């Protein structure tokens, strides 16, 4: 009996030693939920067509992509914001390499009652006022008499960083504000859509115009820019952002295969399908001079 037990233990140890090898083939991707949509579909295609093993996760949004790549625990980080100097200095051992696969806008979204109440655009100063709690009622902005329920994207999310960069130049300069936080894009849309007097920041392609509405931005008195493809292309809309794939150094091997796929026609089609601007659209709009998207 004791012999049997000993043998059993031995067998388990042996089996576990046999199993204790890494899975070298899998390409690990993590990061922004915004970039995730086209990437996840591309991964599905590559998995079935090229037998590539690709794992995808969206933990922590863009900051998760950066920090996990910095720790060497993923191969490609998805990010919906350009890398900042802080990001790079946090992980000195990694030489971050950015590959842009598309362009997106961060929209200021409001709930239906605010939109119908007449608030259609905000200036930078007004947005600052809301973020610093000087503007707490929509009536201060000629809207309905209702308190402003501002939902903030979690710090570290790409969307928030773009928003903070627009308002304050540098996310680190943003005042410490405590608002209810939302994480994923659907969570954000769901909250804003279900709350009266609500406002938040969200990827423009998720602003469906049914439950949540994208505000225009008043860049100068009387001149409002809406997050249209044209306004994105010529940078007249202030909160545009690249959709990035981050790698440690130039992409190599399977990583390169994946990045190339995203840059190729099929990958770019997926980018466009999810409402983002593909590189080709961006180039075409930039080259045509008449693409000013103001109204």
């Amino acid at each position, binding site marked *: 009996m004791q012999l049997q037990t000993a043998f059993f233990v031995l067998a388990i140890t042996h089996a576990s030693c046999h199993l204790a*090898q*890494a899975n070298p083939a899998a390409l690990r991707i993590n990061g922004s939920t915004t970039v995730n949509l086209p990437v996840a579909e591309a991964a599905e295609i590559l998995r079935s067509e090229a037998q590539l093993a690709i794992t995808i996760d969206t933990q922590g949004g863009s900051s998760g992509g950066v920090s996990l790549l910095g720790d060497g*625990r993923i191969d490609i980080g998805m990010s919906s914001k350009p890398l900042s100097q802080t990001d790079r200095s946090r992980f000195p051992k990694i030489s971050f390499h950015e590959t842009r696969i598309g362009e997106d806008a961060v929209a200021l979204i409001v709930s239906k009652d605010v939109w119908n109440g007449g608030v259609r655009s905000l200036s930078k100063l007004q947005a600052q006022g809301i973020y610093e709690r000087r503007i707490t009622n929509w009536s201060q902005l000629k809207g309905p008499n209702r308190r402003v329920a501002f939902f903030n994207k979690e710090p570290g999310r790409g969307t928030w960083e773009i928003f903070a960069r627009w308002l304050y130049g540098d996310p680190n300069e943003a005042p410490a504000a405590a608002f209810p936080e939302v994480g994923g894009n659907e969570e954000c849309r769901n909250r804003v859509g279900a709350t009266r007097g609500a406002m938040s920041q969200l990827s423009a392609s998720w602003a469906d115009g049914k439950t949540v509405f994208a505000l225009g931005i008043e860049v100068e008195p009387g001149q409002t820019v809406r997050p249209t493809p044209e306004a994105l292309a010529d940078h007249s809309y202030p909160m545009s952002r690249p959709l990035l794939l981050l790698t440690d150094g130039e992409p190599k091997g399977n990583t390169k295969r994946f990045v190339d796929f995203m840059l190729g026609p099929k990958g770019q089609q997926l980018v466009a399908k999810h409402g983002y601007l593909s590189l080709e659209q961006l180039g075409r709009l930039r080259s045509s001079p008449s693409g000013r998207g103001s109204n």
Partner: protein
Amino acid sequence: MRKLLDLTFRAAAVLCALLACLIFGWIVSAIVWRGFSVVNWRFLTEPMRLAGAEGGIFHNLIGTLILLSTALIVTTPLSVGTALVTAFYIQSERWRRLCLLCLYVLNGVPSLLFGLFGFIVFVSFFGWGKSWLTGGILLGFMILPTVSVALVERLRSLPPLRMEAAAGLGLSRSRIVWFVLLPQCLGGWVSGSFLGLARAAGETAPILFTATIFAGASIPSGIKENPVLTLPYHIFILAQDSFDQAIGGKVWGTALVLLMLAFCMSLVVLPVRLRIHEEADHV
């Protein structure tokens, strides 16, 4: 007056019980009503496509089952050993109580902290990355107190006569353990394990940072960097990030499958659990 008070009291108590049943009924019907139309054979056997909008939850189901069986394999020897020591080998009453206290505190540890611990130790320190094994081990330790306490209770309730008879036959203590005690507490093991597994099946917090990802994993082929897809994480992610209406139905369908999985495991142990409680009946 006295009678009225009595009546009110009874009515209030019955109302409370009714409310508990109603809440249960509402939860189940809310899930079934929204998820029923999605769940069919193909939903269970097809892998996920288009980030959850199409296809089924095959790999999520498999991943959850992998985690649960690993947890069972991890927890069984540990809990049997713990139970034997606590109920049988320890001679001093004080030490026995200390052991039980540890088990109770372990039972009270929030599941999230197992995840944090697993992230620090397995993911970072051992460098396993996200791995199904980490998840299994963490879930195993999480349900260990449930299984151990069930076993201890079973062992303590065995009539001492049986032990004495076995000793009288000249069996050594080890043989008594293997041939008398362990077979007798099989029921305790089953009820404890499945009760624990029913709880573990729906846990997201311990595996969030350690074992599970959103897409792309299938059957693990090693330990390091071999995550699995799971049902609860699928729901957790899609609740925050489903980008189109079609996913809504899939989320409820997944919730229904998870609920049924947990119910099946609870139902397995129901007779044993009820018997234990009814045995303490005052007649």
